[in-house]
């Protein structure tokens, strides 16, 4: 069963990823975490996302386009990256979510992957 771990980050954490003084501490936790997921043989795919200010939101309603700067959701914590993992069940996925080296405001959302249309749901 595949699950997506969505890593929500505070503005501080987004900053820490590239800040000259703070990035070392950030990656010292995050890289070993991703490595552990890979070495457990459960990683399907994953990526880190650039900060929310880099987002562009596109909406097409009744043929009218509305393009805006910024992310869709207006929340303090924003999606900063994700990993899709293949594990036996949700309990196992939550075990991996708990290991995410989040800052004090970081949150991991875990969601099962929707099986492709027409394929049997595992």
């Amino acid at each position: 069963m595949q699950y997506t771990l969505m890593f929500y980050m505070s503005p501080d954490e987004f900053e820490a990823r590239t800040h000259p003084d703070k990035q070392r501490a950030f990656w010292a936790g995050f890289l070993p975490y991703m490595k552990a997921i890979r070495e457990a043989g459960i990683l399907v795919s994953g990526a880190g996302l650039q900060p929310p200010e880099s987002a562009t939101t596109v909406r097409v309603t009744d043929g009218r386009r509305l393009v805006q700067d910024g992310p869709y959701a207006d929340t303090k914590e924003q999606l900063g990256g994700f990993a899709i993992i293949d594990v036996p069940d949700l309990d196992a996925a939550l075990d991996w979510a708990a290991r995410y080296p989040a800052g004090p405001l970081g949150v991991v959302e875990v969601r099962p992957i929707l099986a492709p249309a027409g394929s049997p749901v595992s």
Partner: protein
Amino acid sequence: MTETEQLVERVARQSYGRLLAYLTSRFHDWAASEDALAVAFSSALEAWPRTGVPDEPEAWLLVVARRRLMDEEKRTRVQSDAEAVIREAMSGAERAVKCGIPAERLEMLFLCAHPAINPTLHTPLMLQAVLGLNAERIASAFLVRPSTMGQRLSRAKAKIRNAKLRFELPDQSQLPERLGAVLEAIYAAYGAGWDDLPGFDKRGRGLADEAIYLGRLITDLLPDEPEAHGLLALMLFCESRRLARRSADGEYIPLGVQSIVLWSKEMIVDAERHLWFASTANSIGRFQLEAAIQSVHACRAVTGFTDWDAIALLYQALVQLAPTVGCRVSHAAAVAEARGAQAGWQLIASLSLAEVRTYQPYWALAGHLHRLLGRKQEAVNVFQAAIGLCEDGSVRRFLARQGLTL
């Protein structure tokens, strides 16, 4: 919180398990008994500020809950004469409260850890049955989706009802095995509460306190069982160090360098008393051995050093009794302290990768031993693996510092 709310909460803490055990033993329906008790407690919140707190709050709650359950039973029958029902219920409830209703709680603990119930649910059932914790709280402690935990608990209760699992004490021949399951479940509750450090748990009492409460309960109810005393001693030894496990700024402090001033002397004395009492039965068991290991650690407060030879020997006995990965890793750590890193390394080298892949303490120990043996690159890699499997930020930072000092 109002005064009444505080009082109801106190009564709930003291009596919930007893009342639920009493009702379930008579009505044979756990879920319905729980619902009835919930109604009783909410009625109390509503009625007591107006009528004053009754002399026997437990009896009052029992009356309301029983009335509710009897109403359920009679739903299809003729409308009952409420007053007669209350009179009847009151007399039974008063008798029950006066007799202290102690026995059913023990039966409830055995029911929760019944072999027909999935072992992963023993502890959650116990926390709900005896302490009245809700599914959300239990789910967080065991890292399970709350709605899933709720469903699992409901299914387990339905199974108890449908399979008519008996609400009674196991006979003497089955007692050791059945008691083992009860003790394991209590210890699992303690383990889940181990990470609730001061300042982190804002819900009042932590799960560790609840587990110790259960440990005391079981030694009160079965005072002659050495393993019950062993378990209580083990939990008390561990708990005595709670304040010493983190520095003032929240950093991880390993056991060997904890400040003994911060250990709770009362808890250590209490633990030693239970361990000594257990040993008089001359029947060694897993929990007594684990408590004995912690007792050796506690001795550092008096002697100023840790007797690693003694600890290694106790772990060796424990490995023979319960050769779990956790136990074998701890044994290797003790042997490394007593007889050098190479001797410890030989022991963990026998573990297979499949066994230890996601077991964080193995990687932390392996990194430590690589470092002592001068294998710098291996140490760096293995510390990374330990960091990647870590759930606790302070331990993660501790391991990162270990890796940096290479």
